[in-house]
């Protein structure tokens, strides 16, 4: 469903992505990990065109992201994205956050959008928080609202950019639980994360990146068994120590 072929990207003279190719099939969960600055976030943002790329092609559901003729807003509305820093709209309540794009992008009427929002908030265990503003919610709650906001668009795939990195430890579980359920329900997911427990539990494949290139792309078992590359082994030994 998501296909990256020979994607490279430069910021001026600095190369941040180097010939990255990978694919994510429908219903597959792929975890992307690697040291900071390895280009994982940039790569995932290229998938919905939030970051332009310099070379190569990316297609989502057969539509080319880099093609100038592509209606990017329309394509983006079909791909959910969750950010490290939640990025809820602070001037709207949790409910309104979920309603906005349903109305303005999908053209749903207010009632239908509100019903959907209520339903999703309940699914996230946040039924009683619909009228609260983001500032009144904990980090974990905000991130779950953000996931609900993305799901409200009935996306064909979900992209997660370090969804738990900005959270206090006790809140990480509540967000991961939601993501695990989503994965089990068959959602196509690309997740940039350091949560190897999550990867072990639900990932189909693990992609390891370093210095802008994909160093390893392996089935979960193979990756956690014996990664082929030394760099991946080193990385795993570092983050699995604690």
């Amino acid at each position, binding site marked *: 469903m998501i296909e990256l072929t020979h994607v490279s990207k430069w910021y001026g003279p600095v190369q941040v992505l180097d010939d990255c190719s990978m694919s994510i099939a429908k219903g597959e969960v792929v975890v992307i990990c690697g040291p900071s600055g390895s280009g994982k976030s940039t790569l995932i943002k290229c998938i919905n065109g939030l970051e332009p790329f310099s070379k190569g092609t990316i297609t989502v559901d057969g539509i080319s992201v880099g093609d100038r003729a592509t209606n990017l807003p329309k394509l*983006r509305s079909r791909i959910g*994205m969750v950010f490290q820093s939640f*990025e809820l709209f602070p001037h709207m309540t949790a409910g309104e956050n979920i309603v*906005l794009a349903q109305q303005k992008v999908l053209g749903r009427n207010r009632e239908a959008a509100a019903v959907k929002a209520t339903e999703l908030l309940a699914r996230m265990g946040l039924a009683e928080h619909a009228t609260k503003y983001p500032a009144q919610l904990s980090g974990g709650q905000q991130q779950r609202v953000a996931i609900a906001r993305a799901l409200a668009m009935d996306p064909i795939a979900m992209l997660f950019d370090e969804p738990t990195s900005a959270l206090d430890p006790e809140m990480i579980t509540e967000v991961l639980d939601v993501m695990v359920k989503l994965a089990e329900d068959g959602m196509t997911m690309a997740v940039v994360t350091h949560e190897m427990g999550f990867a072990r539990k639900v990932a189909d494949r693990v992609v390891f990146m370093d210095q802008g290139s994909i160093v390893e792309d392996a089935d979960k078992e193979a990756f956690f068994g014996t990664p082929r590359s030394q760099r991946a082994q080193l990385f795993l030994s570092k983050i699995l120590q604690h």
Partner: protein
Amino acid sequence: MFAGFDFGILWLNAPFLWNGMLLTLQLTVLAVGGGLLLGIVLAIARLSSIKSLAWLVEAYVNFLRSMPLILVIFWFYTLVPKLIGRPVSGFYSVLIAFVMFEAAYYSEIIRAGISSVRRNQIAAAMALGLTNLQSMRYVVLPQAVRNMIPVLLTQSIIMLQDTSLVYVVGLRDFLTSADIVASRDNRPTELYLFVAIVFLVICFSASRLVNRLRRRYAL
């Protein structure tokens, strides 16, 4: 303390003073409105990716902000008639000066307000499928406006006070009217006290309003 003062003078001259107040309010409202409109245009130009346009606006803003307002008023009073080849009333030349001057300040406030919205908010809006325009309209501007309302109102209060400078081109605003009465009837204390109280009341209510807005729409 006020023995020997005659505050009846205010009542006697009320229509005259009110006319002055009308001019002050008229100038303030028109200058704030015009300044805001031009300020928005300038702010957008300054944030645009067209480098030369942004540079031009920056030069305009920096230039006007380094000038005393009274100098700008003099300029337009002498310049505008020469430019369009016929005399212009003091009111319009002053109004143009105010709008051009205020726009420089407003554009900076608006620009800062828009820049204060975190970039990732735009990314989040776009990721949901909103277009550039929709992201601006529903996500960026509502937050930017909340951030800038207090400063915009403060700047507008300063504008109200600055209208008293129009005496230099012979217009009778509130302060000038009071001054005329004061010297004609030799009652400066009563008149100046009255002017001070009126300005105080207006500014105090406006700042109360600002605080209420700020509390209500705080992010």
